[in-house]
């Protein structure tokens, strides 16, 4: 949650005791290159001033449509991408605070054990030439943990924990279904006892009947092991199931932050309302004429002026075209970046 921080920390930043990760004004710009001379003709603001924090043992979800910057944000946090600006404060279990955004890759390496990733596509995220044992134990080998037999015991234990039989250890990924492969991916992430898991659309490639299993497994593991999740998804219903806090993003910026039920029952940002209205409801008796937003998602390389959502927004006023709305706390725990958040009544 984005609450005022009180405790003074190692590098001078204030950060509440129970916050594991705090992202302050994160920016990631990509140069737009054209022609064979690779001339820079513009920039893409993939992530533009994103701030949030995650408490120990909780799930924060980033949700939005394609190009909203949710994946880029997560890749900056694990430093698979170099952030352009901003802070990524991480508190270790000894209570030391590091700014991951400023650290050199070599210095981050010891901290990498704490962060593990689970990916979207269980078919391309597992090496087809490695056995399940090799896949799940790879992080252990990278971090030089345990002997071969200790690793084997650990892998067997992990497979059991994610609901797979340890006898499968010597098989290759092709022998497993999508849901089973995603379990293998989760076992691999858990192998080094991480504190935090960054899961990028972990269930969107799965069939409905399997999706529920994997979501339930992730919630069970979180409760047992006290894991902290950064969850990236485009599906609001999945996000509702797993999150403590939801960030709705649009073209690189945060539209709204809040707890899922409050956010989905009474959205404060017109874009959140638009997403909710667009969601097909699995109840034929609730068919209704929906007011869905016109037009297309703004191009991050050439965004509109002011609020990026204004060309599609039914509540647009002159101010929206001129000024970028700041992210403000409207109700305790609800942060919205909309000039009219206090006056408009949004119905879902």
């Amino acid at each position, binding site marked *: 949650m984005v609450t005022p921080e009180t405790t003074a920390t190692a590098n001078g930043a204030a950060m509440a005791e129970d916050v594991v990760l705090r992202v302050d004004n994160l920016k990631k710009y990509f140069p737009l290159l054209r022609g064979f001379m690779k001339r820079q003709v513009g920039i893409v603001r993939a992530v533009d001033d994103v701030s949030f924090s995650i408490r120990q043992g909780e799930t924060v979800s980033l949700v939005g449509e394609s190009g909203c910057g949710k994946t880029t944000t997560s890749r900056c946090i694990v430093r698979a991408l170099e952030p352009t600006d901003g802070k990524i404060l991480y508190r270790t279990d000894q209570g030391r605070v590091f700014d991951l955004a400023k650290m050199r890759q070599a210095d981050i390496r010891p901290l990498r054990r704490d962060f593990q990733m689970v990916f979207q596509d269980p078919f391309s995220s597992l090496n087809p030439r490695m056995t399940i044992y090799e896949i799940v134990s790879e992080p252990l080998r990278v971090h030089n943990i345990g002997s071969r037999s200790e690793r084997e015991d650990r892998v067997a234990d992990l497979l059991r924990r994610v609901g797979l039989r340890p006898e499968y250890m010597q098989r290759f990924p092709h022998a497993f279904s999508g849901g089973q492969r995603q379990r293998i991916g989760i076992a691999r992430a858990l192998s080094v006892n991480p504190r935090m898991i960054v899961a990028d659309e972990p269930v969107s490639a799965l069939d409905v*009947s399997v999706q529920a*299993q994997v979501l339930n497994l992730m*919630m069970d593991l979180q409760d047992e092991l006290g894991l902290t999740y950064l969850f990236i998804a485009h599906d609001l219903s999945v996000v509702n199931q797993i999150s403590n806090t939801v960030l709705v993003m649009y073209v690189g910026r945060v539209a709204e932050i809040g707890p899922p039920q409050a956010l989905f029952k009474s959205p404060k940002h017109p874009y959140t309302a638009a997403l909710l209205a667009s969601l097909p409801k699995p109840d034929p008796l609730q068919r209704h004429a*929906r007011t869905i937003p016109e037009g297309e998602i703004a191009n991050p390389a050439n965004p509109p002026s002011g609020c990026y959502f204004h060309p599609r927004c039914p509540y647009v006023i002159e101010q929206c075209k001129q000024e970028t709305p700041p992210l403000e706390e409207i109700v305790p725990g609800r942060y919205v970046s909309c000039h009219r958040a206090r006056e408009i009544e949004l119905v879902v």
Partner: protein
Amino acid sequence: MSTTARLDTSRSAGAVKGSEPLLQVKDLQTHFFTAEGVVEAVAGASFEVYPGKTLGIVGESGCGKSVAAKSILQIVDRPGRIIGGEILFTYQDTSGTYQQIDILSLPEDSVQMKAIRGGEISMIFQEPMSSFSPVHTVGNQIVEAMRLHTNLDKEAAERTAIEWLSHVGIPNPAERMSEYPYRLSGGQCQRAMIAMALSTNPRILIADEPSTALDVTTQAQILNLLQRLQAEHGMAMIFITHDLGVIAELADEVVVMYLGRIVEKAPVNELFSNPKHPYTRALLTSIPSIDAQPRERLPSITGSIPHPNARPPGCPFHPRCPDFMAGVCDQKEPKLANIGENHAASCFLYPGC
């Protein structure tokens, strides 16, 4: 082009009486003959499509929903082959009498089949970008389809194509005609695909997961567009999806498939309020909802969809079924039988199956 591929039909709206099916698929069997063995992708599916109505086919991966649709147009990829069944298409000829033709009796490269494919029955796909040819302009491709299936000359076809592009909500349609598909966004490309499919004035539109690859707000726009076009032009639709939410939004009649078989068939309200097959019930309870309490565990179906090469004996759902009856479900396969008015299911829980 001198020959146009057309059936001798009058394409007036309501060419078939509302109560008569436009298309009847009877016991369709499409198998894939792979090196590892025969995969029964569609193993005896029967359903009907009525004029102006939408049939929803829903199921998870490998259930055979796309193969069933492709079988209707005889465009199943090798090593797949339609090995049995009938697909009866009803149309009115120019003299006004009803004719019925078994699509499967036509060779796949015959003139009549070409007339049906894209003319009488059009199809749109999940990946609009890869369904268009990347080396021809959008306009050329729509005009080509129209020239093949209608009497229009080149100029008239171009005018109609522009009208269609504008009709499906593409801004600056005249300029878009000369664009290549990669220049359009995913949503725009799907709109252009729909324009192309409908420009030949088909009586059935097959939509194979047309909104799955799109963002939610774009998906909602495309679904609204299809509903509007159906109301205006009265074509029937076969809508294939894995998303029960989408089915609830636009289907009239629903077929639920699992591992190549139809497990349940009912009108949409009936299916959602009174699901009979354990698989349908399980699917409906395992959809995450924005109304649910956060952190609540969803009831989930145990196990995973079996590999098509390892189809379980008896009822294909029995290893995952909460109502499994030993000695019955694993011994023989239930038949799809009527268990209520307009409601059919294939499960031994119900007599007659």
